[in-house]
């Protein structure tokens, strides 16, 4: 191999401390190649090392903190809602307790109203049954007025929904009576 080949290899070995044996042997016996290698070594010493360009500890701490913040933000944005709730569940105990209390009161109130409503509709239905019974007995005008006022009162008190409850409690015969004698659709 000639000097040109070795000098080309030296370019690739620039900056390396350990040279291949073959190259070392050549340098030992070739002054011109040795001169080139010495020149390259002198230049490499002018370039310093990686540490010359490294930031100090304070700068690195600041940077690390910026990285932590960025990662935390990504984590926060990517975590599903349920996981977020689970993660901080203990912090939400007071809120959950308040929500349960409000919900409990709402359900309790609703159920109490519903029971009262059921009782009321049964009573009205019973009254209507009584009236239809009277009808069978005779006094048509009285019966018409009584049933009409009962339905009117009932629907006025319990709103539109009341009609369903009222009708549920009547027999087929009683419904026929209402349909034949009153404009039930308008009333209810």
């Amino acid at each position, binding site marked *: 191999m000639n000097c040109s080949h070795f000098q*080309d290899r030296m*370019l*690739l070995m*620039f*900056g390396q401390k350990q040279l291949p044996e073959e190259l070392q042997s050549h340098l030992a016996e070739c002054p011109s190649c040795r001169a080139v290698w010495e*020149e*390259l070594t*002198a*230049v*490499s010493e*002018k*370039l*310093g*090392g*990686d*540490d*010359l*360009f*490294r*930031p*100090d*500890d304070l*700068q*690195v*701490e600041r*940077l*690390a903190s*910026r*990285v932590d913040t*960025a*990662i935390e933000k*990504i984590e926060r944005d990517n975590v599903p809602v349920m996981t977020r709730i689970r993660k901080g569940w203990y912090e939400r105990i007071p809120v959950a307790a308040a929500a349960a209390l409000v919900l409990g009161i709402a359900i309790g109130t609703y159920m109490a109203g519903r029971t009262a409503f059921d009782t009321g509709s049964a009573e009205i239905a019973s009254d209507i049954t009584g009236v239809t019974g009277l009808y069978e007995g005779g006094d048509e005008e009285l019966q018409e007025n009584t049933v009409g006022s009962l339905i009117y009162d009932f629907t006025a008190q319990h709103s539109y929904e009341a009609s369903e409850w009222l009708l549920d409690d009547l027999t087929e015969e009683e419904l026929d009576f209402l349909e034949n004698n009153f404009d039930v659709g308008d009333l209810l």
Partner: protein
Amino acid sequence: MVRLMMKDMVALTFRMTQDRDGAFDLAQETFVSAWQSLRSFREEAKFENWLYRIAANKALNYLKQRSRRPVASIDSLETEALVSGFSPRNPEQLLQAKEMQKGVLEFMAELPDQQRLVFDLRFYKELTFEEIAKITGKAVGTVKTHYRQAIIKLRAFAERKGWRL
């Protein structure tokens, strides 16, 4: 370990971009991206080489997007803050370090981006050509060519600067 590697990444991105703030941003982005794609890291590869790859790509993209090569004007280089990472024993050594930094940055600014990257990874990070080829996604032969050309330019630069004496 992260802090040590951070110093490594900043040194690389700073020499590549010669922009102090940009170098810090790129180093930060490197770690965030690494964290995000940690699953894609293959354990047979060296972790720092994987980070170098991310940092190198970010630095190259940064230079491409900004359409700017590192500025060779010494006055515009903000090397002051980075020198503080190097602990000189006396003012003379500090001055010498600054001069050295200026010289390196001036030389590296003359290199095309790919040559600069290869030079950096080989000379400062002491990686093998095979490792650099994996990091840059180039063939080993191409990487060697880049390095050889960079050293030829360095010799010419040193001649101009009188570094050989």
